[in-house]
């Protein structure tokens, strides 16, 4: 009676989230497995978000409904090693191998390490699901072969990875990522992918690659680019990014602590070029504002972005705040209506994070006036120290 009720309720499940610490004991999972038809607990499940634990992984078949279109599998036990890790990777490989037969549209895989067999399983799953996959996020290094498969997925709109194709040339990017709209690059991946994209775009625009249907640059439909890097961000790094003219959202996180000084090497002129190249930006994070305050970008960069990216609603820019009041008073802003419109229905937010700033009472109004001259619809200033908080509070009163 109880099992009939259990199976009835389980058959109604379509979306299941199993977060860490919410799992049940092995004993119960074993019982459920033994009392579920074909060993599948939720036969109608379509979306599974599973933060697996060592004792739950072996029971993966319970959750693999034939109707799954979305699976997010994460395993966050990073300290594992030796035989235990091998066993976990083996279980994860088994899960991935089972995915081959599912009509998957969205696959997220976040595991602590990889192995040749896991790598091969991911490649195989990608190949089998190649016509349905729209989102793929694999936070473990993949082989060149796996990446070559991913580049050719016909319907892939979102791709997140941690490494690029070693030894690949821009030629291999011809016709790659035909539908890609969101690209998220972690760790070394930015340094490996972005130059390739740049070279491929230059090759296309110079007419060296005229073979239809490969005569368009890869990533031409890209609207969101997110990069997490631990190197210095300079003009050469930004150059390939500036070829994605349709970008609406650009997030470039480069924590200065990772390079032992200020990691942001752009100048105001560089930012002006970026703003010109990416006029559709709505959300932009350029660098991670830090406490060093030695970067060469100034308030002028804010003005360039304001006047050239007219849809801007959110901006986090690493710029020097040493002489903020003076810079704001002297900055040249293009006359309206060429700049960011003052729209009462839309609020602009400025993110200052850890940028150093202390403000005296008499500076508050001139500084706010300066910011409002650049961003007439400025609604919020986010910052982690008292100066920014004081400005944000005063902004509400203004």
């Amino acid at each position, binding site marked *: 009676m*109880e099992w009939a009720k259990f199976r009835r309720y389980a058959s109604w499940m379509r979306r299941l989230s199993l977060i860490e610490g919410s799992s*049940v004991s092995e004993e119960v999972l074993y019982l459920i497995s033994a009392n579920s038809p074909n060993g599948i607990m939720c036969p109608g499940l379509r979306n599974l978000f599973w933060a697996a634990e060592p004792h739950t992984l072996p029971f993966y078949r319970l959750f693999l409904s034939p109707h799954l279109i979305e699976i997010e599998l994460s395993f966050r036990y990073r300290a594992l090693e030796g035989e235990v890790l091998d066993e976990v990777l083996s279980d994860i490989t088994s899960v991935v191998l089972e995915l081959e037969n599912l009509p998957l549209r969205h696959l997220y895989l976040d595991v602590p390490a990889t192995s040749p067999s896991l790598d091969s399983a991911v490649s195989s799953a990608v190949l089998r699901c190649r016509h349905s996959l729209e989102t793929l996020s694999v936070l473990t290094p993949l082989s060149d072969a796996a990446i070559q498969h991913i580049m050719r997925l016909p319907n892939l709109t979102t791709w997140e990875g941690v490494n690029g194709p070693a030894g690949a040339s821009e030629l291999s990017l011809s016709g790659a990522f035909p539908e890609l709209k969101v690209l998220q690059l972690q760790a070394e991946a930015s340094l490996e992918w972005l130059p390739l994209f740049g070279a491929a775009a230059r090759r296309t625009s110079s007419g060296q690659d005229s073979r239809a249907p490969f005569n368009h640059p890869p990533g031409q439909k890209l609207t969101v680019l997110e990069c997490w890097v631990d190197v210095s961000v300079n003009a050469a790094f930004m150059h390939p990014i500036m070829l994605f003219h349709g970008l609406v959202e650009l997030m470039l996180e480069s924590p200065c602590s990772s390079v032992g000084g200020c990691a942001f090497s752009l100048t105001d002129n560089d930012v002006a070029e970026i703003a010109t190249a990416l006029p559709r930006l709505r959300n932009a994070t350029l660098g991670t504002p830090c406490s060093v305050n030695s970067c060469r970008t100034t308030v002028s960069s804010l003005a360039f972005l304001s006047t050239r990216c007219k849809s801007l609603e959110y901006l986090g820019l690493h710029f020097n705040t040493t002489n903020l009041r003076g810079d704001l008073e002297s900055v040249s802003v293009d006359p309206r209506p060429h700049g960011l419109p003052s729209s009462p229905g839309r609020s602009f937010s400025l993110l200052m994070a850890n940028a150093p700033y202390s403000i005296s009472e008499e500076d508050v109004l001139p500084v706010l006036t300066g910011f409002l001259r650049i961003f007439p619809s400025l609604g919020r200033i986010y910052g982690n120290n008292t100066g920014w908080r004081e400005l944000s509070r005063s902004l509400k009163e203004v």
Partner: protein
Amino acid sequence: MPHPIVEISELTQLVADHLLPDDRQSLVSLACTCRALEEQALSTLWSEQGSLKTLIKSTLLTGVLSPSQWLPQVRTDGP
């Protein structure tokens, strides 16, 4: 006899979907309203779950399992 309108599954599904996920208690109430609405309301109520615990508590704890059985006994290095 239930009102004919509750036998139109497309309509009752719309009502149930409207209540999920913000008002699960109302879905329970809807399921208790009449038999014609029970299946639709319950299936919507169970369609999104954040763990297995609710399912186990609602079904197996009455005769199959004891509370001490279903919590994890063994944990290795946590995240």
